[in-house]
């Protein structure tokens, strides 16, 4: 898993966004509030990059504007942007996002994690693999792999 040298030696850094403003309505237990894209983004922004001691947010791999939530249809769709188009960590990053949401969101949600169109040379292959729940399930039973993923998603 570990490369001898970093693939992207000097990644560009991005500003972290501000903390979410908590509204009085959100603190009122009598009001049902649905999942929104900021809430989902907050779950994945702090995932660590497998290569750098930086978060996916700081590397701009995930962005709030690339998170879509449809509460009615129980759908969550996330696009992530690898820092370089030949990044070999793309599948691992996608898996980390999937696992994080699998463990955080109610089971009713169908989560789709895909590469932002045009940002990776193996986009279709990585997307197909990430969408195959059987492969994802098998990957999560692989001790080495789940160890690496747990490191990525530990806060």
């Amino acid at each position: 898993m570990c490369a001898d040298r970093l693939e992207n030696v000097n990644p560009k850094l991005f500003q972290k966004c501000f903390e979410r403003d908590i509204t009085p309505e959100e603190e009122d237990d009598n009001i049902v509030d649905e999942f929104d894209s900021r809430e989902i983004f907050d779950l994945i922004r702090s995932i660590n990059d497998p290569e750098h001691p930086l978060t996916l947010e700081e590397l701009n791999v995930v962005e709030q504007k690339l998170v879509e939530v449809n509460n009615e249809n129980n759908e969550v769709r996330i696009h992530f942007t690898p820092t370089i188009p030949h990044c070999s960590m793309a599948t691992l990053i996608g898996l980390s996002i999937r696992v994080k949401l699998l463990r955080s969101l109610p089971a009713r949600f169908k989560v789709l994690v895909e590469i932002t169109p045009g940002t990776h040379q193996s986009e279709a292959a990585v997307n197909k693999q990430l969408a195959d729940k059987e492969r994802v399930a098998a990957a999560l039973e692989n001790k080495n792999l789940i160890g690496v993923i747990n490191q990525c998603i530990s806060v």
Partner: protein
Amino acid sequence: MKVLYVCPVEMAASGRLDLVDSLTGHRGRVWNVSWNPTGTVFASCGEDKTVRLWTKSSGQRTWMNKTVLTDGHQRTIREVAWSPCGNYLASASFDATTAIWDRKSGEFECNATLEGHENEVKSVCWAKSGNLLATCSRDKSVWVWETSEDDEYECAAVINAHSQDVKKVIWHPHDDILASSSYDNTIKLFREDISDNDWINCGTLASHESTVWGIAFDKTGTRLASCSDDKTVKIWQQYLPGNPEGVVTQSNEPTWKCVCTLSGYHSRVVYDIAWCHQTDLIATACGDDAIRVFKETPSSHKNQPEFELICTVHRAHTQDVNSVAWNPKEAGLLASAGDDSRVNLWQFKEETIIF
């Protein structure tokens, strides 16, 4: 011009699936359900690494979990299959092995483990003759195993025909013909070459645009149904060499042609398909939590068949439906398994609507 008035009475086939039972016991995702040949017992398996056997006591309405088979596998059990005699069970696991369970002692016990695949075994199936077993894996290979009378299992062939993960293997209902479906978007057919005992690829069915998750033969074995990540179901018709329709065949092998594509019905991946050999109904298990039933229309033609959706159960499970299986003896009894850790039983009833 003469105006034709058409009688406004039309008949439409329709049906419904009534929930008979919703069974709990498994922990986590249930991947597969499989009826024994007499339809009196069914097996289920999943993420919790167990195989559960369910039966109905005489005179009772509910299905009970009578046996739990544990300790056979280290990882998820993806599929279970019964031998044609009903005395053996095979379970395929992500731990790269296939376990063979028999009930010579009265209870099912694991008495053989088939090793050889490099990684996850995805599917296992016994041939009608009972002497052959097929398995497939993410390692892209399909293995054919020969069984002898003293319960020895010997690898008869390792077939490397697919270019990707092989998801499913099934045998022809009468002949020793094997079909497999794959992440490489194709379905392949294999038979033994009598001249050198080698298993050869005797057909490739290409038309799906993504992973083919499930395949099922009809009772005659001249048709095959397939379901895919591309959200469609396809029906394939066999054409023998010298067929009157003039469909081209090569090297004296039958050609399988896609004669019908059912698209627009499923909103997500179709994980499994079951073709009932008693009623000819087709059931599908879908990632949109629904079970659907299709029926061939009375005016359907062999070379251009038409199927209609006659029943949809939305939220048949509260998460993805992974498996559907028609009872082989009791017409219309359907078992399903889902990510919601449940096994559900359904009874199909046909209704004719006149409007």
